[in-house]
């Protein structure tokens, strides 16, 4: 079965200089799209990938990553909206590159569709009441 999944990969310092993703793609026959990549000042690496391929290959790839020492988790848990702080103003709507925010035509409330979210974090600091939160 073909799957397409978004995952967050966290690389400890010891792995930052190794060709993990290259091996991942070559050996497990997956297509990938880099949604986000960064290396922190302490040299921990963060990579957000969309991986496409066969379900069994995907599972083997995840097992390989875990064994190599990469911490993995599905992306959907990354960006959350604090519903208490959101005021439904709508400032986020024009900032989001994937259109994850939409204004309901009837209620004018701002809907957040987290399946469209690629965790680019553009909404975090542009939300006036700071309702968008990053969690790992």
């Amino acid at each position, binding site marked *: 079965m073909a799957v397409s999944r978004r995952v967050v990969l966290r690389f400890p310092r010891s792995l930052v200089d190794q060709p993990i993703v290259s091996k991942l793609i070559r050996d497990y026959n997956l297509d990938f799209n880099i949604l986000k990549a960064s290396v922190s000042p302490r040299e921990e690496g963060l990579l957000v990938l969309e991986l496409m391929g066969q379900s069994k290959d995907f599972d083997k790839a995840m097992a390989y990553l875990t064994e190599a020492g990469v911490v993995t988790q599905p992306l959907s848990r990354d960006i959350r909206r604090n519903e208490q*702080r959101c*005021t*439904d*103003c*709508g*400032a*986020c*709507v*024009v*900032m989001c590159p994937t259109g994850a925010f939409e*204004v309901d035509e009837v*209620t*004018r*409330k701002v809907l957040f569709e987290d399946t469209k979210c690629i965790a680019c974090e553009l909404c975090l*600091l*542009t939300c*006036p*009441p*700071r309702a968008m939160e990053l969690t790992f």
Partner: protein
Amino acid sequence: MPKTIAEINEKIRKGQAVVVNAEEVVEIVKKMGMSKAAQEVDVVTTGTFGPMCSSGAYFNVGHTKPKIKLGGGRSYLNDIPVYTGLAAVDVFLGATAIPDDDPRNKVYPGHFNYGGGHVIEDLVAGKDVRLSSTAYGTDCYPRKKLDTWINIKDMNQATLFNVRNAYQNYNIAVNVSDKMIYTYMGVLKPNLGNANYCSAGQLSPLLNDPYYKTVGIGTKIFLGGGVGYVAWQGTQHAPDSLRGDNGVPKRGAGTLAVIGDMKQMSPRYLVGTSFLGYGCTMTVGIGLPIPILSEEILQYTTVTDDEIFAAVIDYSDAYPNYKPDILGEASYGQLRSGKIEMDGKEIPTAALSSYPRALEIANTLKEWIKKGDFALTDPVELIPGVEQGVTFKPLNERPVEEK
């Protein structure tokens, strides 16, 4: 037959007043006709919920033993500096104040995570805040240092006093330059990447009473989740602003100064707010009841988003350099559709003012009045209208000669 506020209050007391919000009144007038609806409807409620920078609060924190004179020294609430140039233990906190050690825009664009508006939100949420002060000491106020937790319920007075709120209409902000800019109207993407606006439109208080026929000093309002009053015209009140044929301003125009006891307000309607690269402020909820004293007053309340226009202003040049140029006009109906068109280009729109929460405020105020909990007040004097010659002037700078 015109009604009076006293007659409407009599109906409110008996629980018989007909109260509708500024959305509902449109349909009612369509169905009944203006004349019959003016007889039937007693009050139209409005609401707005947006960032309003000229907001703040003054507090009397109570005397310490031995006494301290905060005046002339430095005082902070949760590290936010407060103004102490008042009597011994009175201080004023402004919504845009930020900590002395905030990096501001030195690391551009600055984040501005916590400021005066956030302290006000924390206080009305019932949280303890830290009061830290240094003073110079006098014979009658010998103490020089103070560091304590304080709660709003322990203060003698905690009074919200906003010198400019409820702007009657506002600019639509765009950026024609080729780089991102960070403004109080939010982040504006280059080359007309987005258009940000900030008004509750057809629900907004002063857009429903465009000539200030009912609102004045002492008008009782919904303020920050509690009851407040109109204190005065707001700063930059500009009744002479450009108006459409319907009398509704097409630019920023009237404003209100409002006041109320913070102890009965709520963090749902006073929200500390941050604008990336710009600063801190507070989002304020206000609801104004409009007594339907005549057909004319009713007619003004039937205005809809399609009939209210605002000016599109370039915040990369025209705004900062105080140039009068506008790029065009758009109605709130167009803005709420999610895009406007400029020079054949579609520009996505975003609101900074929450329509759902403005509606919630108008509906809350409606319920208060219907239940008989909220009677209307007769203003002592109306705020200045078009004929009174109040204008909004720029600063006339005059060079200072060194002696």
